[in-house]
């Protein structure tokens, strides 16, 4: 099978082909042929032997992140998010919706609890003015308006629990 994977800002083309033994793969990575021996030690933890070099590659989760963010692997102490080529176009499309007509949304920067609403619907805000305060792990985070405008919609409700990426307010 052939995959295109974007990782660390580079698009990599990789072909995998089962070798003689089930754990052996003939790999072609950007035109470079490689023999790889792969073992899944336990779910998400992969041992790779490539020309005598041993690598541990760990998948961050068994299911795709629910918030639409990219999956990631850990390798040599680094967390590397990656993206399959076909997913990327989907994601780009998603990112474009909602941004039209000068509408700006204020999203939760982290999972947490809404502690304060600083402006009401219909009120005008300046660029960088605080709009909503959320709190998690004893830290408060004030979310600011990205531009001057009017609060079209205030979706945040004090006391509510939010997850990262939730739309809390819409600024026109």
């Amino acid at each position, binding site marked *: 099978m052939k995959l295109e994977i974007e990782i660390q800002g580079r698009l990599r083309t990789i072909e995998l082909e089962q070798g003689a033994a089930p754990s052996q793969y003939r790999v072609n990575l950007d035109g470079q042929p490689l023999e790889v021996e792969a073992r899944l030690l336990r779910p998400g933890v992969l041992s790779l032997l490539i020309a005598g070099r041993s690598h541990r590659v760990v998948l961050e989760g068994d299911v795709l992140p629910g918030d639409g963010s990219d999956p990631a692997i850990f390798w040599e102490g680094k967390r*590397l998010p990656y993206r399959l080529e076909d997913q990327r176009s989907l994601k780009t499309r998603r990112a474009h919706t909602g941004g039209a007509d000068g509408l700006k949304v204020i999203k939760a920067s*982290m999972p947490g609890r809404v502690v304060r609403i600083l402006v009401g619907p219909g009120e005008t805000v300046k660029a960088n003015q605080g709009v909503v305060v959320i709190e998690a792990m004893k830290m408060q985070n004030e979310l600011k308006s990205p531009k001057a405008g009017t609060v079209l919609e205030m979706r945040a409700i004090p006391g509510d629990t939010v997850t990262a990426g939730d739309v809390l307010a819409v600024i026109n």
Partner: protein
Amino acid sequence: MRSNPPSPAFRKILIANRGEIALRIQRACRELGIVTVAVYSDADRAALHVLQSEEAYLLGPAPAAESYLRGDLILEIARRTSADAIHPGYGFLSENAEFAEACEFAGIKFIGPRASAMRALGSKTRARQAADAVGMPRTPGSTRALASLAEAYAVADEIRYPVMLKAAAGGGGKGMRAVTCCEDLKAAFEAAQSEAQRAFGSDEVYLEKLIESPRHIEIQVLADEHGNCLYLGERECSVQRRHQKVIEEAPSAVVDSALRQRMGEAAVRLVQSQGYTNAGTVEFLLDDQKNFYFLEMNTRLQVEHPVTELVTGLDLVHLQIHIALGEPLSLAQDDIHLRGHAIECRIYAEDPANGFIPSPGRITRLLQPGGPGIREDSGIYEGWVVPMDYDPMLSKLIAYAPTRELAIARLLRALDEYVIGGIRTNLSFFRRILSDDAFSAARIDTGYLDRLLAPSQSSPDSGESDDASSETAAVIGAALFESSRTAPATVTQPRASAWKSVARREGLRE
């Protein structure tokens, strides 16, 4: 003098805390044959401290004010379960004199100082008065709460700017404000007061001279109920972000035995002057001339106690329990020897690449380090959802080695083994600090991290542009995981997934 019979043992101890410290205390209790009672909030039903305890009781809803800070409910559970003692851990009720008093009143031993000593030394202003009484050097400034803004102006003018406003009941950087000029004092005073009120239920603040780029050095003390008191050397906690300790080590690279003795003896004098018992920490600032100034006392076991345990070979929680039982210390000052070097990293659920914002949530992957000289005090497991309601500490990674250099190498090695997935953590931040030349050379003070994090200092992790071939294994790994995920649609072989068949053959998963 009493010739006392063998002291009665505690049969059962309630641990009024959560997370790694609750587990650490449980382990000590189990080693001493003591049954443990855990308490938990709605958010912590699935926490490890509940799983690992012999008994566990629900306190209430997630917010700490409705659970871990409910001294009344905790005492009620202690009574109901016939617990002999309560260990408060750190944070929550550990420095709450009313709670310590309520325990005394209920006939349940509070494992810590008596309420009176806690009041005398736990309040920063009263501790400064006590320091004056024993002739211990302290930072210039007020020794009482500021009665008014006018008084704040007067004190600041006298000791000269820059000054530091601090909450008398404070800790952890809350209610603290550095003020560099008198124009800023009013706003800072009001902000510090309201923050102190919110965090500690007391708006008392005082002023002290801000010592420029000091080192944070603290002395661990242990005092029994018979007037004996020991100092167990120092810890250096100069690596701080927003007044919160990030890395702690023992011993300090700049404290020699003569200075250690002077600081240790000063700490012991302070502690003994107030009839303080059990474990405590006397914090000092050390200036570049190696003058030390008393900062404050922490009347509890501290987060960073493991580094002292490793270099002294002592178990502080065991000793706390023995002291609480009324036993005299079995050690003399001459028995305390420091050996080797220990360094601790506080592993937090926060995103260093994104302004250190908190990152609660599910831990989808966890690989923990081990091997020689590595201790991990942790309260997490794969699959656990780190609650948003409490502080973000996940674990403490501690390395012990013959020298500081080797302890750093050991930590870097352990950090490479450590994987926490699903939430963001500061693991990469520690890699950066421990690889930094200034840290290696122990050129650290409390401003060190601010300098490291200054925008001009580009992170070695960012903008990595080494050649693509170095990530070969990462790309192949990602491709293999993805091929197993998308196998039915894309794999050309008749098997549903070549990948799964590998797993089946290895008998690892279905």
